[in-house]
C-alpha cells in the first residue's frame, strides 16, 4: 500500500540531470525535502537541489558511493547539519530551525554511539530520562525495548562487554525506545561480518514492519538496499539518480550510473542510428554489428550510447533475431548454482554471462567460439557515461 503511495511522486533521473526537477511532493508526505542544497565550503554543492518525499511507514534507503551526499541528507534531516538552501519538512512542519533534540527522530549511528560509561539499561533509559518520564514508565519501556531485540538479559552490562551484533541491537533498541515516528540509520550494519549483517537486515526489516515506523536508511551496500527497502534513492554527485522500488531499480535502471551501481551489468558502446517506437537501433563501435535496444536514455539518432544488459539475460548461442553477436569464451568460473563465463564480445573482454548449471551448457569450454544475444526488452540504451 505504501509502495503505491510512494510511486505517485515524480521520479527524478539523471537523464534529466541539470533540468528543472520540480517534482511536487505530495501533500501527505511524511518527510519532504524541497529544493534542498548543501555546501560546506561555499564553492561546491554537496547536495544539489534535492527534492524527495517519503511516505509515512515507508522504508527508504539512500544508496550511493561515499561522497555522494547521502549521509549529508540524513544529517540535515536529523538536524546535525543545516541546509544551505531549501526546506525540510517533517509531518508537514518545516524543521530547518528546530534543534535536533526537539525533532523526536530516532537515530542509529554507524558505530552505534552507545555511551560507554552507562550500562545498557542506562543507555536505553537516557532518552526517556531527558523526557522526564517517571521511573516506573521508564523501566517498563526499557524492558520492552530490550525484549524487542532479544537482549532482555543484558540490561546491566556495559556496551564494551557486548559483541558487535549485540551492540547493534542495543543501538537499535535505544533509537526506538522513545517511540519515534521516524528512525534514521546511518550505515548501521557496516561494522558487522557478512552473516550477522544479513541476519540483522531481516531483523530490522521485521521491526520496521511490525512497528509501522518510517525508516530512512543510508548505506553504500546495494544488496542491503535491495533487500530491505520499499524504495531506494540512488545518490551520486549530490543528485538522486533514480528513486524506485528495488525490482524497477534493478531491471529498469534509468541511466548508466544506476545500471552499473546496482547489480552486475554488461556494457557495450555504440552510436544510435535510429529510434523507432521506443526502440533504438545501435551501431556498435569497432564495427561489431548492429543491435536493437530499448531507448531509455539515449538521445537522438547519431549520439553515443551505452547498452546495458544484465548477465543473466544474455542468451548463449542466440539466433540472428536475438541480436546475436560473435563471442569467444575467455574464462569459466564454476560457482555451484551457476557458471560465470567471461567472453570476448564486440572487442571487449569483460562481457559476463551467467549460465545456469544445467546439462544444456556443458559444452562450453574456454576458447570456444559462439554467439551471444538478447531480447530487445532486456537491453537498455542509456547515456554514454
Amino acid at each position: 500500500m505504501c509502495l503505491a503511495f510512494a510511486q505517485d511522486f515524480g521520479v527524478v533521473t539523471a537523464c534529466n540531470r541539470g533540468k528543472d526537477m520540480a517534482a511536487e511532493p505530495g501533500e501527505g508526505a511524511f518527510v519532504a525535502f524541497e529544493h534542498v542544497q548543501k555546501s560546506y565550503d561555499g564553492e561546491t554543492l554537496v547536495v544539489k537541489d534535492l527534492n524527495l518525499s517519503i511516505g509515512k511507514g515507508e522504508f527508504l534507503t539512500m544508496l550511493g558511493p561515499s561522497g555522494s551526499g547521502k549521509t549529508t541528507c540524513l544529517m540535515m534531516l536529523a538536524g546535525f547539519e543545516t541546509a544551505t538552501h531549501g526546506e525540510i519538512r517533517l509531518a508537514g512542519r518545516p524543521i530547518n530551525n528546530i534543534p535536533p533534540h526537539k525533532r523526536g527522530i530516532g537515530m542509529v549511528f554507524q558505530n552505534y554511539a552507545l555511551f560507554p560509561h552507562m550500562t545498557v539499561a542506562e543507555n536505553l533509559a537516557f532518552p526517556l530520562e531527558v523526557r522526564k518520564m517517571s521511573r516506573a514508565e521508564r523501566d517498563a519501556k526499557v524492558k520492552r525495548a530490550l525484549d524487542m531485540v532479544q537482549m532482555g538479559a543484558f540490561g546491566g552490562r556495559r556496551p564494551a562487554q557486548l559483541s558487535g551484533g549485540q551492540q547493534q541491537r542495543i543501538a537499535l533498541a535505544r533509537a526506538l525506545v522513545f517511540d519515534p515516528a521516524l528512525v534514521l540509520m546511518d550505515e548501521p550494519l557496516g561494522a558487522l561480518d557478512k552473516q550477522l549483517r544479513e541476519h540483522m537486515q531481516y531483523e530490522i526489516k521485521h521491526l520496521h514492519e511490525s512497528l509501522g515506523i518510517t525508516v530512512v536508511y543510508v548505506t553504500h551496500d546495494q544488496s542491503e538496499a535491495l533487500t530491505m527497502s520499499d524504495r531506494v534513492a540512488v545518490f551520486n554527485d549530490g543528485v538522486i539518480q533514480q528513486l524506485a522500488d528495488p525490482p524497477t531499480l534493478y531491471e529498469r535502471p534509468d541511466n548508466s550510473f544506476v545500471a552499473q551501481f546496482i547489480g552486475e551489468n554488461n556494457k557495450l558502446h555504440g552510436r544510435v542510428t535510429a529510434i523507432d517506437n521506443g526502440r533504438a537501433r545501435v551501431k556498435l563501435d569497432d564495427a561489431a554489428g548492429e543491435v536493437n535496444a530499448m531507448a531509455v536514455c539515449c538521445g537522438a539518432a547519431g549520439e553515443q550510447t551505452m547498452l546495458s544488459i544484465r548477465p543473466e539475460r544474455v542468451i548463449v548461442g542466440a539466433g540472428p533475431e536475438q541480436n546475436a553477436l560473435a563471442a569467444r569464451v575467455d574464462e569459466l568460473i564454476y560457482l555451484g548454482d551457476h557458471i560465470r563465463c567471461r567472453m570476448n564480445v564486440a572487442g571487449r573482454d569483460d562481457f559476463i554471462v551467467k549460465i545456469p548449471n544445467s546439462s544444456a551448457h556443458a559444452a562450453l569450454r574456454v576458447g570456444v567460439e559462439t554467439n551471444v544475444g538478447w531480447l530487445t526488452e532486456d537491453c537498455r540504451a542509456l547515456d554514454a557515461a
Partner: protein
Amino acid sequence: MSEANAPMLAADGRPLKKSLQRALRAQKLRALLLIAPLLLFILLSFLLPIGDMLFRSVENQIVPDTLPDTVKDLSEWDSESGNLPDEATFQALYFDLFLAAEAKQHSRLGSRLNYERPGISSLFRSTGRRLDDLGEQYQDVFAGFDPSWEDAGFWFRLMSAQGDDDAARDVLGAERNRVAKLTGIDTGGDIGFVPSATMAELLPRTTREYTAFAVYTVKDKNDVVAEEEPWESVYAALGLDLEAADPSAIAAYSGPGAEVLKAAALQAGQLPVIDYRQAMIDIDEGWGQESNWQTLKLYSGEYTNGYLLNAIDMQKTPEGPELKPEKQRIYIKLFLRTMALSLAITFLCFLLGYPIAFLLATLPLRTSNLIMILVLLPFWTSLLVRTASWKILLQQQGIINDLLVWAGIISNSGRLVMINNATGTIIAMTHILLPFMILPLYSVMKTIPPSYMRAARSLGATDWTAFWRVYFPQTVPGMGAGAILVFILSIGYYITPELVGGTSGIFISNRIAYHISTSLNWGLAAALATMLLVVVLALYWIYDKIVGIDNVKLG
C-alpha cells in the same frame, strides 16, 4: 569422564601446563634481558634517592661515631636526676672529643646537635680550641720526670709489641674502627705500629689513645708514627693509668722503656690530680648545663625519630615526644597550606584548561595547532622570565593595577595586592602548570567521537544535558590524570612560591629547600620530604578509593 579431570598432556607426555610455562619462560627471560639495563637504571635512579632520603630522615650515626664512649656512659645516666653525669663520663667525653677535634670532626657534631639545641655549636667549637690545655698539664710534669717522655721514638718503643705473641691486635682493630667511623677514611692496612699486649694490660687507656693517635697519624696525615710526638691526650691517659695502676705490676715490667716508666710510676704522686668534670666546665660552662647533656643523651642513638617528630612540629624531650611551643609550630601549617593552595591551583587549572582542551579537540587542525602552540609556550620560556613578567603585571604599580586605576574601577590608594602573597603564587603556578592539565584532557577528548554528542541530542537531550551526561563523564579519566599531575607537581614546587609567594604564599618545599641549602639540616629536610611523600601516597590512595586509578588516562 575421569579423563577430563586428568591434566592435559603435550605431545611428549609432559603436562601441557608445564610445557607452556617452559616455552614462555625462555621468551620472558629474553624480554627481561632486553630491558634489564633500563630497569636497572630506573631502579637506581628512582628508588635509591628515595631510599637515601628515607634513611637520612632517621640517620643519626654522627653522634655515636664521634663520641662513642661518652654515649655508652651516658646510657646509664638518669637525665632527670638533676645531677650532671659522673666523672667517668666526663673523662670519656674528654678523650672522645680530643680525637674528634684532632680530626676536625667536633664542629660537625656541634652543627648537628645545634639543630636540636641552640648554642651547642659554639660549645663544641670553643671546647675543641681549648682541649689541649688539660693534657699539657700532664705533659709538662712527665717531661720534668724524664726528657724521654717528649721523645717520639721512646714512646714508639714503649708502646710497640716485641713479637707477634705480644701484640694487642684487638686494641688495634678497635682503634682502627673508631678512627674509621669518626673520619670516614679507610683505616685498613699496615700502619707501621702494633700495640703491645703487655702495655694494653698495664696501661690500657694509654695504649688505646696512643693506638688511635697512631692510626690517625698514618692514615689521615701520612706521617710516620715513630717520628711524631703523641697528642696531649696520651699524656692525660698515662696520668690516669698511673693513678690507677697496680705498682707491683709496673715494678714487674721489664720491656722497653721500663726504667723510665718505673721512675714515673714512683713519682706518680707529683702528677696533677684533675677533676675532669670541673676541667671541662672550665673549658666551657656549657658542660655544666644539664640540658646540654640531656640533648646529647636524647640524640645518642644511631637512629633517631627526632627529625620526623620535628617535621610534624613535635620534639623529643626526656619525658618523650611532645608538641613544640606554639611559637615554633610551622610545618603542619605549611603542609596544610601547601595542600590547600595546590588544590586551588588544580581547580583553577581545570577551570581554565577544560574549555581550552575542548577547543583543541574540536577545532579544525590548523586552528587547534595554533592554540596548542600557545598552550605549550610556557614550556619554552624560562621560569624566571615568566615570573618576572607576572611581577610586572601584578605588582601594585604594575600594569593590571594601572589599568584598573585608569578605568576607575579602583582608586589609586586602593591598588590591589596580587603578588607576594598566596594570590601571586596561585596565579603564577596556574599559568605554569596549565599545560599539564590541558594535555591529558586533550588526549582523552580527542578520542571521544562526535557521534556520542549527536546520539545524545538525537535522543532528546539539550546541548547542556548531552555535554553533562554524555561528554563530561567520558573526560573524567583525563581530568583525573591532569589533576594528579598538577596537584603532585604543585605540592613539590618551590621556586615560584619563593619568588612571588611573599609570606602567605610559600609552600613546605620552600622550607625543604631552606634546610637543604641554607641551614644544611639535611636530616630535617629529608624528614619533611618523607612526610610529603607520605601525604602524596595517602592522597593517591584516597584518590584510588574514590575515583579509581585505572580511571586515569594520560593519553
